[in-house]
């Protein structure tokens, strides 16, 4: 101990999100082995292993940290099963200690991870549960967030999160076991819920509910990680899943420039595109190519198409706005909504001119949701400013500032207000 922490040695750290990722890996593996009715027991075992790791590693990192945590969880799980067997409740089908050890080792092996996490995902995305309950369960058991952390993300109290998790647990218990997606009878019914939940998870990272921390890249990265698990399994690797993965790649690639150093949103035309993550854009293009099969143009295909045009364009002026408008038209036909209408109008402004875009924006202003949406007023103000209607722009920016939900939003609008000519 200590030798490898000499004066000249570089700082030794841990892989980012190691504890969260191992939490997800181990909870899925143990819940599958012990059954969903023992989910709480699985959580206890994993928490115990992580606490032990924290304690044991204070003076240095072990050679293989991941293996250390898995080993700690394994030993703890075997102890618990042996102890509980006197009450004959856990794994009564296993005849002896060797059988228990073999079963746990097989469950915790890296090769079983994908199957376990997919089984968990499809179990929690039960169409009978509300979407926010599904996402809460994913955040708890597949992203390793505590109820308190989930509450902060959704801006609700911890008790609400605990209630959602309780509802989820009760429902999971009815399943009796977490079935491999290759053998899951209602895999088709559940996959829609899974994709919707992953999209919500991504959005919680991309523009989350908590105004103090509107961008949390790790949730976006988790959403992509879980989506790519779906692509690795034949039963769940459909074209719309590839489209969803493409959308996530393009959006994550552009995350580094969304906020400036003070945490203020940066308008698209001011973002430094050199900082966008090229390898991730390439990965997005590969997913998009894989998505172009079959006869169904899903909502994710359209959204990925739009994100792709932004990601590959050298500048705002050189963006293929014509194609983006077409994607928005199709999106409006398939899943109409005020936000889609707003974004469509902004694309029209780039394609057909500021005046036309402004007219379209004004046309949708009656939408109740948009009237209270600060971004709507800021976008309208931008167009008014560009159309030299500085008086109108001023009042629109002021409206945006009044409605803004975070300091970051407010500062962003105030900066643009300050660019206007003095009346």
């Amino acid at each position, binding site marked *: 101990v200590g030798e490898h922490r000499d004066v000249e040695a570089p700082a030794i750290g841990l892989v980012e999100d190691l504890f969260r990722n191992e939490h997800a890996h181990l909870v899925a593996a143990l819940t599958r082995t012990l059954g969903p009715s023992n989910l709480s027991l699985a959580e206890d075992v994993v928490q115990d292993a992580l606490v032990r790791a924290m*304690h044991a590693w204070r003076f240095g990192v072990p050679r293989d940290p991941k293996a250390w945590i898995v080993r700690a969880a394994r030993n703890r799980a075997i102890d618990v099963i042996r102890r509980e067997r006197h009450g004959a409740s856990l794994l009564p089908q296993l005849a002896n200690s060797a059988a228990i050890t073999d079963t746990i080792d097989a469950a915790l092996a890296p090769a079983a991870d994908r199957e376990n996490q997919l089984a968990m995902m499809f179990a929690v995305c039960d169409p009978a549960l509300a979407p926010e309950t599904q996402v809460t369960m994913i955040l708890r058991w597949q992203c390793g967030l505590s109820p308190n952390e989930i509450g902060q993300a959704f801006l609700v109290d911890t008790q609400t999160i605990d209630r959602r998790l309780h509802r989820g647990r009760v429902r999971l218990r009815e399943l009796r076991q977490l079935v491999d997606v290759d053998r899951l009878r209602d895999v088709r019914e559940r996959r829609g819920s899974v994709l919707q939940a992953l999209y919500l998870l991504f959005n919680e990272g991309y523009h989350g509910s908590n105004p103090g921390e509107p961008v949390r890249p790790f949730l976006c990265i988790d959403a992509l990680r879980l989506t790519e698990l779906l692509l690795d399994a034949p039963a769940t690797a459909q074209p719309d899943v590839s489209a969803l993965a493409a959308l996530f790649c393009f959006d994550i690639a552009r995350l580094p420039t969304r906020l400036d150093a003070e945490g203020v949103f940066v308008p698209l035309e001011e973002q430094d595109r050199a900082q966008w993550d090229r390898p991730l854009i390439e990965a997005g293009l590969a997913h998009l190519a894989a998505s172009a099969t079959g006869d169904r143009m899903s909502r994710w295909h359209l959204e990925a198409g739009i994100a792709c045009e932004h990601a590959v364009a050298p500048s705002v002026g050189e963006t293929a706005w014509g194609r983006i408008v077409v994607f928005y038209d199709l999106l409006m036909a398939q899943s109409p909504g005020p936000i889609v209408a707003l974004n469509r109008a902004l694309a029209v402004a780039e394609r057909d001119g500021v005046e036309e875009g402004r007219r379209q924006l004004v046309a949708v202003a009656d939408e109740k949701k948009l009237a209270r949406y600060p971004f709507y007023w800021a976008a309208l103000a931008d167009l008014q400013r560009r159309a030299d209607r500085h008086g109108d722009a001023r009042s629109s920016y002021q409206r945006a500032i009044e409605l803004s939900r975070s300091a970051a939003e407010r500062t962003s609008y105030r900066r643009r207000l300050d660019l206007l000519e003095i009346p």
Partner: protein
Amino acid sequence: MLAPVTTESPGTTGPEEPRASYMLIFRGGAVSRDDVSPSVLQAHVEKWYRWSDELARQGRHNAGTALDNAGKTVGGHERIVTDGPYAESKDLVTGALIIEAASLDDAVAVARQCPTYEFGGSVEVRPVQNGGG
């Protein structure tokens, strides 16, 4: 040649000052199981690494050892072996670290920067006696 004047945080000392060894004995600092998330656990252990790196940067040659809670105690003329340490969890020794410091006050200043207080730990600071000086 004169050493350049530096303004350093309390607890750092110039290399020319006499050094002695001190042992920091850590007690408690265990977390109550449920309310601490994986991220917070990882962040906590990373705070220890940053602290240790800072001590190394100051040339304090720190070397620490973490202790597991289970164990045995041997005592008395009869060398009687009993199970486990008796202390309550907040008093249980969970690790120790030897550092170099200019004085007891300096060593205490180092101990005050330790991350262990986040989870209610305490640190005992003791000069190491070296046989002949």
